[in-house]
């Protein structure tokens, strides 16, 4: 198959743009620093992930076996039902008078059987919306914060990018985005910092970090 030639108009339009414009030295240096930071970060993350994998597998196995054992034991042992159990699943067996004569609990089963699944569903929904921060997430943001404190803003941005990749909707998004604003401002990328700050303000209108941004703004002036 042969490529059809470009029309003369398109050729004339595209020809001047075939060369590659060299980057500004500062941009190039920044990009290389970020690449180097990303590389060291990746290597570190790989080490952290590789080590506890077997430990996690063993722990998960133990929990599973223990859980299955407990569940099976509950069924086998049975044991005398507690007063609450008697009300939830009434049986034909004769009951102790003290339990039967307890009217508020006797009414409970009908409402409980209807409400429990809904409540469970609601709990599950909220737990996904606000993910609790994990140790790895905390560690990553701690690194970013230390980089900001040290003044290594390029590395901080690399760590922040890694956080976005691994914990997009993690429990520390607010802290991450605040660090992004500080890092951008620290690198002198004021326009981007302002943009990030505006996005932050819209996303977290009641954040305690907003006052910090205002102070940064005043300092800029």
């Amino acid at each position: 198959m042969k490529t059809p030639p470009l029309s003369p108009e398109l050729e004339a339009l595209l020809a001047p743009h075939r060369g590659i414009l060299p980057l500004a030295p500062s941009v190039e240096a920044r990009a290389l620093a970020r690449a180097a930071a990303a590389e060291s970060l990746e290597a570190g993350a790989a080490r952290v992930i590789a080590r506890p994998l077997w430990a996690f597998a063993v722990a998960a196995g133990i929990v599973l076996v223990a859980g299955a054992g407990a569940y099976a034991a509950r069924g086998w042992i049975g044991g005398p039902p507690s007063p609450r159990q008697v009300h939830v699943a009434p049986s034909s067996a004769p009951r102790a008078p003290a339990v039967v004569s307890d009217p508020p609990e006797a009414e409970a089963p009908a409402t409980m059987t209807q409400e429990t699944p809904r409540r469970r569903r609601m709990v599950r929904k909220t737990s996904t919306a606000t993910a609790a921060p994990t140790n790895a997430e905390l560690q990553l943001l701690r690194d970013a914060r230390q980089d900001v404190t040290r003044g290594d803003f390029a590395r901080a941005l690399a760590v922040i990018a890694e956080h976005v990749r691994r914990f997009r909707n993690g429990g520390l998004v607010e802290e991450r985005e605040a660090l992004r604003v500080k890092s951008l401002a620290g690198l002198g990328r004021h326009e981007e910092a302002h943009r990030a700050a505006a996005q932050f303000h819209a996303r977290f209108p009641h954040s305690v970090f907003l006052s910090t941004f205002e102070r940064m703004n005043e300092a800029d002036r």
Partner: protein
Amino acid sequence: MIRKDPVLEAYQQEISYVFHALRWLGARPQEIEDLAQELFIALRRSWPHFDSSRPLRPYLFGVAFRVVSMQRRKRKREVTFASLEIREGGPGPDDALQAKQARATVMRALERIPLRRRAVLVMHDLEEVPMKQVAVALSIPLFTAYSRLRKARKELEAAIRRTGGEASKP
């Protein structure tokens, strides 16, 4: 001091090209540095699969294409963020050179072409990469690459006409 490893070295050599490719693929100026970093991470992961007997630039362009595509998908999901974007007010930079204007015209026209087809057009008609390599770099059949090129050229011509018309309006 930057540690010398082959991926970083290759990236360092081609850093201007990386930025150039990202720009042609329609990355926003404020995103380019972040995307370049993501490209480096992707490159590092895919490096074992890179055939060193082949030229590096088409491969880099393929990685850039994937990174930009992923970025666009993310941007589509984040509707609230996209709508929050602040317009950069004030006049543009002072260097109103003709070459820059022409570049901007081409860029505006390219923006009207869907990314998949634009990647083929930029690679072949601007980077002058042979079609076989274009197909390999973008992981598409050769026939698909040709059909995308044909369509992209038509779209570019139409877009140029349209942008030219809009520019000539008072």
